[in-house]
């Protein structure tokens, strides 16, 4: 199972005479490991490049070629006009769409997981369709609606759009968790004279919490990183991805890489801390 740790034992260091046979056998046995690690390299490579180029000092407006080492961008991350404004706007939109999508999505997930009702299959289809639809189609159609209703594009249209496309993902995440929950726990709580509200707050919610958290995290990531739907529905509002898109045409400041690197670092740190806490809780 632990092929990664077995690696040194498998290398033909001890018996050089039989090396070819052993090497090929070792290679055949660990081919999948090597292929997997190669894919991982492919996935990580751009992040490495983003990080390295956050220390670049480019000559022109574009940060695509390595010139010389500099920490200028790191000491002045907001040095480019509108960059940090777009970042905080993106965070704000991501926060509110996470709240909106998580509340609405959790309610739907509970209804689907706990109750039998008519129109169940239509509801499932309606929830599945946004995930099975290219973003550009949703983006264009929603923008057509807004346009014809005479709605001004901006913060609110982006927020509405983000809640719309994050909703289904939250439902999927929460529903999976609620479905796998033992209903007898709630029955036990009620047998012990807990009111429905107490049962929900003290039993149901804590058990469903990991699913809700996963859904919320997904919604935040999707909303924060969304470009296509925002592109159609933002008007002149500039979110962070919109800023990067514009920069790709006008010239890419190094600060973009700084923010990309910081985001990556924060994400890894959060997950590691989360797992550390989770692991400790499991042990105790």
């Amino acid at each position, binding site marked *: 199972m632990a092929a990664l740790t077995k690696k040194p034992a498998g290398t033909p260091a001890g018996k050089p005479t039989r090396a070819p046979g052993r090497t090929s056998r070792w290679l055949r046995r660990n081919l*999948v490991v090597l292929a997997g690690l190669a894919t991982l390299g492919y*996935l990580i490579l751009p992040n490495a490049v983003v990080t390295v180029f956050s220390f670049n000092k480019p000559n022109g407006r574009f940060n695509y070629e390595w010139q010389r080492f500099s920490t200028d961008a790191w000491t002045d991350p907001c040095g480019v006009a509108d960059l940090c404004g777009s970042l905080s706007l993106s965070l704000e939109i991501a926060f509110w769409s996470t709240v909106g999508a998580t509340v*609405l999505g959790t309610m739907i997930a509970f209804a689907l997981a706990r109750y039998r009702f008519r129109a169940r299959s239509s509801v499932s289809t309606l929830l599945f369709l946004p995930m099975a639809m290219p973003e550009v*189609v949703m983006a264009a159609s929603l*923008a057509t609606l807004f346009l014809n209703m005479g709605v001004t594009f901006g913060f609110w249209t982006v927020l*509405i759009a983000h809640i719309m496309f994050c909703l289904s993902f939250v439902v*999927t995440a929460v529903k999976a968790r609620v479905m796998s929950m033992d209903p007898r726990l709630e029955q036990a709580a009620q047998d012990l004279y807990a009111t429905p509200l107490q049962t929900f707050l003290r039993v149901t919610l804590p058990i469903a919490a990991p699913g809700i958290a996963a859904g919320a995290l997904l919604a935040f990531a999707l909303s924060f990183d969304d470009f296509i739907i925002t592109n159609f529905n933002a008007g002149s509002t500039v979110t962070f991805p919109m800023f*990067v898109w514009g920069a790709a045409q006008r010239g890419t400041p190094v600060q973009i890489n700084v923010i*990309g690197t910081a985001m*990556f670092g924060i994400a890894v740190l959060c997950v590691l801390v989360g797992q550390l806490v989770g692991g400790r809780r499991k042990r105790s």
Partner: protein
Amino acid sequence: MALIGTQEEPPAVTPAPAAAGRRGKLTPYWLLLPGILWLLVFFAAPLVYQASTSVQTGSLEEGFRVTWHLATYWDALTEYYPQFLRSVAYAATATALCLALGYPLAYLIAFRAGRWRHVLMVLVIAPFFTSFLIRTLAWKTILSDGGPVVSALGALHVLDLTDALGVTEGQRVLATPLAVVCGLTYNFLPFMILPLYGSLERIDPRLHEAAGDLYARPLTTFRKVTFPLSMPGVVAGTLLTFIPATGDYINAELLGSTDQKMIGNVIQSQFLRVLDYPTAAALSFILMAAILAMVTLYIRKSGTEDLV
């Protein structure tokens, strides 16, 4: 469900179950109402609205009116069919590559990683949190002319081969189909790996041992046991990769040239630059219909209906 306890309660409470029953009947609808309403108003209604826009004629100044001008569809198809075909071809290639690249990694994480499993999982998900536009721009650096990758491919005569195949041009990778497909593959790879991992992880490792005990060779075990059991992940992964890849216009815009424009690029420019809303609506309607048809066929054929 809630009635088990109430049977032994004092009679004073007996009306409660009836009330709870009626309330219970309505509860799912109250829970569904806000979210479903949101989807109906901001997802379903726009699609209907778009269908009507696609048969309108007019201009920005005079306004658009429904005239059942179906020729818009015909014109859109005849003018932009290369972009349609290109989108499907690029997306299909990228999906196949994602499956080929993603499967070993998902397998590695599920069966061979041991205590490294969580670390590998983090490394798969973490890139998500760096804006994908920034990461796509990084490919511009990686694939730049005269960069290490292109030099190495040139020295190994790989570029001669790809030039001959028509996927690259003039010994460069940027602004060629190869760059766009490479970007698409990269961007949607996690969407393939996660469902694959999800279905592989559920496989009981004892099944592998059993296959081995029955003298199945590793390849046979994979073909007869592992792969069939991972089919739900394969189906979900290919859909989650193919659908967004077909409609994508970011990779074609950032890594391709005008010869690699996909249908998403056309819709975007028709909508946001040319302001020809009927054509944009017709194009996205055709795209949606084509994708729904392909997805339905694919799901029928692979026999997994329960995707949500």
